[in-house]
């Protein structure tokens, strides 16, 4: 794969070597299967998500990467007829255990969607909604502080601080997506799931979001689904390749893009199919 320049590759290699000593597993999938009605969408996926790293899920359309992502915060529960099997753990707790509260899980595992979907409310209300329903702010000043720090973390504060009470839907596409990221951050999740967060954005907005993802990984564990090989190479430390509902292979990003074990991975990242 020649999309990564040598220097970037070198950097990626170095960071991953540095991290290797204290890598922890945040989420773990074992024999995960998903059925939509009679159709099986995922077959026995075994995948580890490492803490404070960006894990990219790649693969051709319909390969099940979004389905797997949606298993991680049980968003598949909302789809009629979807059935999840196997086990997924968050900090070694099974998230499909009946004792686990799905509302609490989603507060710990936030999500950013493919299309920016701000609420048709003000920018402030968008970010404040999560902390408000979870009772994270004791008073108004608290809430304002949370909103401000979330918008700052999402690198949006400087652009919107003068119009924080204007509708969030009036922002540009890229700003809307960063608003959605700020909204997810405001709940202080441990893991952030991103489902093709840049597919509706132009290259400049994409660059900003990618920069943001790189910064966020210091505090959060990030799982990102992407169709763009360059994006996976740029932002992720580990990459998992899906195909037709199976996990083809998983490994450090630089290895996946330079020396994959599986021929399908090789073919996909060089653009021979997909």
């Amino acid at each position, binding site marked *: 794969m020649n999309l990564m320049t040598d220097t970037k590759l070198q950097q990626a290699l170095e960071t991953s070597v540095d991290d290797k000593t204290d890598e922890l597993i945040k989420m773990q999938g074992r024999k995960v299967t998903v059925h939509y009605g009679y159709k099986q969408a995922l077959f026995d996926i075994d995948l580890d998500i490492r803490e404070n790293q960006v894990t990219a899920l790649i693969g051709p359309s319909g390969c099940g990467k979004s389905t797997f992502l949606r298993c991680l*915060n049980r*968003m598949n529960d*909302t789809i*009629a007829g979807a059935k999840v099997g196997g086990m997924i753990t968050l900090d070694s707790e099974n998230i499909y255990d009946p004792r686990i509260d799905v*509302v*609490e*899980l*989603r*507060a710990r595992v*936030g*999500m950013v*969607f493919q*299309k920016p*979907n*701000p*609420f*048709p*409310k003000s920018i402030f209300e968008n970010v404040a*909604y*999560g902390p408000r*329903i*979870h009772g994270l702010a004791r008073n108004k000043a608290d809430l304002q502080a949370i909103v401000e720090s979330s918008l700052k973390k999402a690198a949006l504060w400087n652009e919107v601080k003068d119009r924080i009470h204007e509708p969030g839907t009036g922002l540009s596409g890229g700003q809307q997506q960063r608003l*959605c990221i700020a*909204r*997810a951050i405001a*709940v202080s999740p441990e893991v952030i799931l991103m489902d093709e967060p840049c597919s509706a954005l132009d290259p400049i907005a994409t660059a900003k979001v990618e920069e943001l993802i790189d910064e966020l990984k210091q505090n959060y564990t990030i799982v990102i689904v992407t169709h763009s090989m360059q994006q996976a190479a740029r932002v992720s430390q580990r990459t998992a390749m899906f195909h037709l509902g199976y996990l083809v292979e998983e490994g450090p990003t630089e290895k996946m893009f330079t020396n994959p074990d599986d021929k399908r991975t090789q073919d996909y990242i060089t653009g021979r199919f997909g």
Partner: protein
Amino acid sequence: MTDATLERLPVAKAPARRDIGLKRRYAAERRFRFYGLAAISVGLVFLAVMLLSIFGKGYTSFVQTSVLLPITFDQKVIDPQNKRDSDPNVLVKANYPVLAQRALAERLGISPTDKPQMAALKGFVSDGVRTQLRNMVVADPSLIGTTKDVWVLAGANIDSAFKGQIDLDVAEGNRKVSDKQVAWMNQLRDQGVMEGKFNTGLFTFGASSRPETAGVGVAIVGSFYMMLIVLVLALPIGVAASIYLEEFAPKNRLTDIIEVNINNLAAVPSIVFGLLGLAVFINFMGLPRSAALVGGLVLTLMTLPTIIIATRAALAAVPPSIRSAALGLGASKTQTVFHHVLPLATPGILTGTIIGLARALGETAPLLLIGMVAFVADYPTTPLDPSTALPVQIYMWANEAERAFVERMSGAIIILLVFLMAMNITAIVLRRRFERHW
């Protein structure tokens, strides 16, 4: 530079034009536009004819001919034996029309002993003076023995003649006002004591067999009670049912059957709902007949499917991405619905509700079956008292033979139309406001 390049190159030759049916396509387009315009024109013409005929017949009902009479509250007529302190009924039973007749005779310069002339005065002033003068005296007995100028209503035929609705070229025996009455009418008009005044009675009177004292007051109160009951019952029940069906209920055979049946209910003729109300609310539950409560319940049954269908459509129109966003933040299903989906659906729900209410306001058939087609002269104080409704009042007046009732009927239609228009405008205004807010 570019120009030079352009000049140097040979220009491509256009190939022979193909016939791709442009003429035919444009003709089809023009034809279709014409059909559309024609359809709209036909609709507009019918609307204009309807409105013109209603307003043309009805606008005169907002004016009522009145006569200014110097009424002498003669104690000899009202209370000959001076017993009013011991028996208050004396004031109620007194022969008040005589007072008006005498005052009129005095105005016209007719001697009270001239029997034939006095007989011809009958019907010149409305019999409604009986209640009008009685109420004055009962409220203030000190009026007895004094003379006061009072505007009293003219009789229905005099009113029609004064408004020019009776053809005076017809032979005297074939019309309802005599030449003598016409002469008196002109005399009073010339004196400036007979004129058309704004008809407040149309809005305040209840049912009456005399057109000049008949009004839609009771019907408006009845309709108001019913709308209140429909709003209070149908809106919460309808919205709750829709939210459950649309957001919470599992999609299975049972909910499919419920959905089909709700759609069918919306198509059930309203008279069937009337029969249902008669059987269930009056016969089985023993609620009073002719009561606005029963009418409101029946109209609620009728309006529910409309509201449910409109609300479900409004809920389904909220983009799923909003639901995902809220759920992804850890909002519960109920929070998602009440914080995000329902507010976004509110404009649609409001519109559906007001359209349902407007339909209920104009509904007549079911009310006939539960006995609301009744002669109700007294205002209902609670929804359990007998009352009528605006459309039923129109129906009853349409059955009357007198010319003056036709006028009243058109007036009542105008009032009903104004209410409906006000409701629709409210719907539009509320909708705009909510849409701007979100």
